């Protein structure tokens, strides 16, 4: 036994050294390009290989299902109900017209079939409504070897299980430590870098350094997530004095946008690590941080934002008007605050490809730490970013209409469903005013303005 001990420690030492060397090489291979903003194209190759493996896995599952004479679950991207987007009035008129109703003109009338119209509509929303499904992760067409996205687990063969096991090993034992190391590096560099830049006197040199410290650190964070981003129309990138608005899916959105542009962040002051980062960042360049108490005061918020955009030397503000994370299949109501300020709005559409890792943060289900762990144990985060041409508020539209116009543009570009519903419905129930509107509309239809009919 004594003879084995020194032999053992030799093996352990060799293992330790080789791992360290490997690790360092990888870190250098990844961090150095991040600093200079170049890419070797390794991630794209990685993506292609993974896609081939996923396709194979799905085929095997389909074969497994066929053997058992079962059906594989295929997700419905547009829901299960055929809905036509007509208004309440139009649909009721249609129903009445199709029947043999005596009243051929538009006299207000009640028909028994109206009850069924409402019942049908109601039942449809119970089975498949537009809002509930926006707050849970998007479903995938083919399996991506993550157990968290498998809907047909009973059809996995031995070979597939082995492959999945290998995947787990790679993701948790190779990728995760690497990514954590990168994230740690990125965040520390950001804090240290911005603090040091903060000591410099204000001027062009300080701005130059600040910009590059920010960019470099965000790029390292991008690699910490293995985020593969495709930017489109970079000529439309936001300029000073403008506001950049984008759809919100996760806190990662900030990293994705800030690694390609220099923005002033807006947000609430946090405690803990977040707070440390915020305090450091604001030393290098003016970000807009609000105290908790100030956030409630809409006038104060608007005032500070207005002051910021009016100063042309200050950076474009980055804002997510939805106010909460949505699952990236739709864009929900934009809060009008940012659109009242009167600055040029630069819309940005972000669409994630959930195939390699779903970036959506379901905040009612996972805390921040669990979420980040899930992100760092996915294969990759793949997304496309479109910089849309700048928009300004027209004379005849108000802030809400302007917000909706921008929202539609973003939805159209990203291929997302454009909803009028408020993202706040994730946590709060819908207001009664909507119901009252519907009732008013229907009342007009059955009673109208004919006062004399009530007496017959």
């Amino acid at each position, binding site marked *: 036994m004594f003879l084995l001990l020194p032999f053992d420690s030799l093996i352990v030492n060799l293992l330790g050294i080789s791992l360290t060397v490997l690790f360092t090489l990888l870190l250098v291979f990844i961090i150095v390009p991040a600093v200079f903003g170049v890419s070797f194209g390794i991630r794209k190759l990685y993506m292609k290989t993974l896609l081939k493996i996923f396709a194979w896995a799905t085929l095997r599952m389909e074969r497994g299902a066929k053997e058992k004479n079962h059906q594989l*679950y295929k997700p419905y991207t547009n829901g299960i109900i055929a809905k036509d987007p007509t208004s309440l009035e139009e649909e009721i008129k249609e129903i009445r017209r199709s029947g043999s109703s005596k009243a051929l003109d538009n006299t207000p009338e009640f028909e028994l079939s109206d009850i*069924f119209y*409402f019942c049908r509509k109601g039942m449809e929303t119970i089975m498949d409504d537009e*809002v509930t499904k926006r707050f*849970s992760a998007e479903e995938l067409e083919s399996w991506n070897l993550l157990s968290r996205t498998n809907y047909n687990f009973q059809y996995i063969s031995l070979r597939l299980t082995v492959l999945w096991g290998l995947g787990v090993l790679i993701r948790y034992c190779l990728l995760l430590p690497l990514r954590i190391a990168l994230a740690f590096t990125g965040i520390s560099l950001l804090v240290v870098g911005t603090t040091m830049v903060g000591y410099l006197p204000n001027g062009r040199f300080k701005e130059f350094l600040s910009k590059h410290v920010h960019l470099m650190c965000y790029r390292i964070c991008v690699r910490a997530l293995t985020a593969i981003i495709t930017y489109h129309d970079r000529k439309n990138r936001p300029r000073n004095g403008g506001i950049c608005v984008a759809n919100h899916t996760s806190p990662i959105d900030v990293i994705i946008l800030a690694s390609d542009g220099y923005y002033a962040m807006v947000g609430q002051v946090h405690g803990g690590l977040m707070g440390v980062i915020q305090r450091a960042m604001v030393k290098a360049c003016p970000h807009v941080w609000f105290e908790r108490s100030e956030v409630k005061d809409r006038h104060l918020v608007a005032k500070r934002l207005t002051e910021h955009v009016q100063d042309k030397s200050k950076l474009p503000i980055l804002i997510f008007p939805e106010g909460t994370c949505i699952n990236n299949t739709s864009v929900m109501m934009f809060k009008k605050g940012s659109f009242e300020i009167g600055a040029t709005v630069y819309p940005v559409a972000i669409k994630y490809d959930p195939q390699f890792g779903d970036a959506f943060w379901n905040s009612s289900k996972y805390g921040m730490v669990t979420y980040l762990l899930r992100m760092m144990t996915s294969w990759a985060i793949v997304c496309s970013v479109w910089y849309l041409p700048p928009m300004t508020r027209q004379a005849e539209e108000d802030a809400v209409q302007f917000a909706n116009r921008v929202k539609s543009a973003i939805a159209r570009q990203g291929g997302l469903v454009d909803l009028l519903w408020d993202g706040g419905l994730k946590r709060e*129930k819908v207001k009664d005013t909507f119901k009252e509107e519907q009732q008013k509309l229907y009342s007009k239809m059955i009673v109208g303005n004919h006062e004399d009919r009530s007496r017959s």
Partner: protein
Amino acid sequence: NVTRVSLLLRHSQMTEIKMETCFSHNQIIYLYSQFTSLDKGENGTLSWEDFQWIPELVIKSLGDWLISAFFQEGKDQAGFRESAKSTNCTLLFDYGLDKNDKIFHNELFQVLRMMAGVNVTDEQLGGITDRTIQEADLERDGAISFEEFVEALEKADVKQKVSISFLE
């Protein structure tokens, strides 16, 4: 979340639901996903409260009336199997109606009140209720029976328009 579906929806339950309703295998899984998303308490059943979280339903007139169709006599929780039956396409006409029930003036008035809200006076609503019952009541007993109901709808030839159309 569909991930848990295969684990929670047992094969036997699935076969039963397929027999009792007209939904396909995939549609049942989709509905179960919706069911579990609404089941905030994660106890396998839906309560009245859970339905209030569907914004599009809550703002619709008759939303409450529809929800009550999910809860059987005296119960305040609805399991998935009962819920699937309640939404079944062919039973669209049986909203809380027993074939022996009749719709009296009072009930129709209440339904109309739900649909129109506070924007119509009692007088106007009463008038409309009277007229509707007059038109449909063939037996002249002051109430609409199930057969008269179906008759009125057939006359209006609207069966097509009031049934739910599913995709694919």
